[in-house]
């Protein structure tokens, strides 16, 4: 490859350490590690911001009746909580992990498009500043739910909708740029010998996720644009008066929305597939089947969207089709869970922090998968739809799924990033407190949901009072548990802790462990040789 030769020639032009300090370093940086760090910190801050909104929600729901906030503000909290967590916390965290790890795992010196990388990060804070600022507008911010169904977001919304639309456009542009960067990097910058079927699974899952992103983020952009023109410029895509159809909104939204939920879980599958073999000290069981399962999940995710719309009056044939297609997705998902368990089978397991989170992921994500299967049964969904059962389902797959995988990844790679071992005591507090409280928080939601408590309401019938008290207590405890993680991160960034070895985990394999800890500012300027 010609790139090897030329890299040697140009090697001397590079800074071998981070360029001068101060804010400018971070503003102008095109280094994948810097940008990864920025993404990860941004995601964590958004996680805390979105989390505080959840605390408001749970405080109001602690007791029946209206006591702390106005219903309109309550709705703004549920809406912005959802938007911030999906677009501000989970997605940027995964992009941050991709920035840090994908080049190191495929033996590339950086991402393929470093300047675009800088842009795709730096527009994000503006998007969220706009979204959060809209909460302070007269009449408040968006209050129509993260799904912004028309006509709630058109006829019945206020002027802050324009800001909502604009901020979603920016978030979308950012993730599209991030996705293109991942695709181009993986296609063009793999070290010699790193064939596709040798790529670590985290790289594979991100590769497939990136395709999902470029396929559906533009559709989301279209949907918000239609809402904008319906609301302000007299079009009637979603208004029956002008010949449109509000149900059409839901089709367009969920055509984006269902692949979106897989965007938030496929990289998590990748992370778990890196961690489990390391701590079971066995190669991943069924590598190829993992790749194919991921690809089939991604493809199937385009034909199941209407399982969110069973109660919109679809004809029976449609209900049946979407029910069966949805259940079909659980087959490749089941393959994955099976492979993880088979990897652990008779492995020499140890239970370091990344493994604990990975194990919690496997168990709890599966609970979320099962409640998903229940929701996929059309006649049953007529009862469960828009109740707390749905809330329980998606928090099991997203909090104990996506977010636990991000914690697992952070513990797994933090020694590589910071060069020090994290504080194990804080980590243990973080894990055990989170594990207990997250279940106190989300498990009872199944019961109140089955009993008929609707979602997105600030008040509820008295019979739900006891469970809701527990849910709120779990919520506050889970929120507070995250402060252990904050303290741990600050310590690690200050390099307080034992120095970490290049390969701090005995059973770990992969290129990222062949470079010293902390990873130098530039890595693999000469591509490694892959056996």
């Amino acid at each position, binding site marked *: 490859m010609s790139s090897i030769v030329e890299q040697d020639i140009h090697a001397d032009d590079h800074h071998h350490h981070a360029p001068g300090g101060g804010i400018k370093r971070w503003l102008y940086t095109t280094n994948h590690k810097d940008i990864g760090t920025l993404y990860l910190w941004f995601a964590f801050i958004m996680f805390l911001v979105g989390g505080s909104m959840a605390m408001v929600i749970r405080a109001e729901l602690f007791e029946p009746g209206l006591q702390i906030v106005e219903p309109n503000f309550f709705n703004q909290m549920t809406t912005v909580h959802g938007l911030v967590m999906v677009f501000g916390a989970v997605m940027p965290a995964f992009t941050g992990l991709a920035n840090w790890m994908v080049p190191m795992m495929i033996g590339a010196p950086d991402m*393929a*498009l470093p300047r675009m990388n800088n842009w795709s990060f730096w527009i994000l804070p503006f998007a969220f500043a706009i979204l959060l600022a809209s909460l302070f507008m007269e009449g408040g911010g968006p209050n129509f739910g993260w799904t912004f169904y028309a006509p709630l977001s058109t006829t019945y919304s206020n002027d802050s909708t324009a800001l909502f639309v604009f901020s979603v456009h920016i978030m979308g542009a950012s993730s599209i740029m991030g996705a293109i960067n991942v695709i181009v*990097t993986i296609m*063009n910058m793999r070290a010699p010998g790193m064939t596709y079927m040798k790529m670590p699974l985290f790289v594979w899952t991100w590769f497939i996720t990136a395709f999902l992103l470029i396929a559906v983020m533009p559709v*989301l952009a279209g*949907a918000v644009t239609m809402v904008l023109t319906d609301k302000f410029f007299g079009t009637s895509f979603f208004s029956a*008066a*002008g010949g449109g*159809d509000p149900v059409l909104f839901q089709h367009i939204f969920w055509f984006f929305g269902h692949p979106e939920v897989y965007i938030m879980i496929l990289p998590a599958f990748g992370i778990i597939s890196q961690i489990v073999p390391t701590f079971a000290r066995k190669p991943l069981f069924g590598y190829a089947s993992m790749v194919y399962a991921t690809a089939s999940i991604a493809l199937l995710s385009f034909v199941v969207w209407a399982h969110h719309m069973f109660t919109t009056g679809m*004809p029976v044939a449609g209900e049946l089709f979407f029910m069966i297609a949805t259940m079909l997705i659980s087959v490749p998902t089941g393959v994955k869970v099976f492979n993880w368990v088979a990897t652990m089978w008779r492995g020499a397991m140890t239970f370091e922090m990344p493994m604990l989170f990975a194990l919690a992921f496997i168990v709890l994500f599966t609970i979320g998968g099962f409640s998903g299967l229940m929701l996929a049964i059309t006649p049953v969904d007529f009862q469960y739809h828009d109740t707390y059962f749905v809330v329980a389902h998606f928090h099991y797959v997203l909090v104990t799924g996506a977010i636990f995988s991000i914690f697992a990844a952070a513990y797994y790679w933090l020694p590589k990033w910071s060069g020090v071992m994290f504080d194990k005591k804080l980590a243990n507090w973080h894990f055990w407190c989170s594990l207990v409280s997250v279940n106190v928080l989300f498990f009872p939601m199944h019961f109140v949901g089955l009993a008929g408590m609707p979602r997105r309401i600030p008040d509820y019938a008295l019979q739900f009072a006891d469970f809701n008290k527990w849910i709120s207590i779990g919520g506050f405890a889970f929120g507070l548990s995250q402060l252990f993680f904050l303290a741990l991160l600050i310590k690690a960034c200050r390099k307080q802790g034992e120095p970490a070895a290049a390969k701090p985990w005995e059973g770990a394999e992969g290129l990222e462990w062949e470079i010293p800890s902390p990873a130098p500012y530039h890595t693999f300027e000469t591509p490694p040789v892959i056996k």
Partner: protein
Amino acid sequence: MSQHAVNPVKSAGKWLLVVIGMFGFGYALVPLYDVFCDITGINGKPSNQAAAYQAVEIDEARVVKVEFMTRSAGGMASEFKPMVQSIKVHPGQLQEVEFYVKNPTDRDIVAQAVPSISPGPAALYMNKTECFCFEQQTLKAGEEVIMPMRFYVDPQLPQDISVFTLSYTLYDVSAQVVAQN
């Protein structure tokens, strides 16, 4: 950055085209949805073109109940109701029903009625030869009108449908009409 065999900017450009294409696809879903629903009738939207009444055979053996519902859209001040709540017809039989509307305000309004049928698949078999919903209605301040609607049910109506509901929502479109003139 070092040079590479493949120019990354070029391949990024290729993916950007996909992005633009998918943005277009989002918009293309709008007409696609309409065409799909026109063919299958699954969203319960009956045709907004007058059907011609060809002398179809009247299926005396079968009785279909058609129910009528009316609603004024939010923010619309009008009284709008069907003169009969429901009617039993034989498929193929031409039938007229009437709707009453009153503009109780002291300004003229332009109204548009939008029909919807439930269960959706019945929409394909509901043939209207005349309907006030085919065009906008100008209602003078205080005016009361009886509006006729003539229809026949296609004898091909699937056997499992013996009753369906036709619902009209009346919208105030005065603002849009003013904007267009």
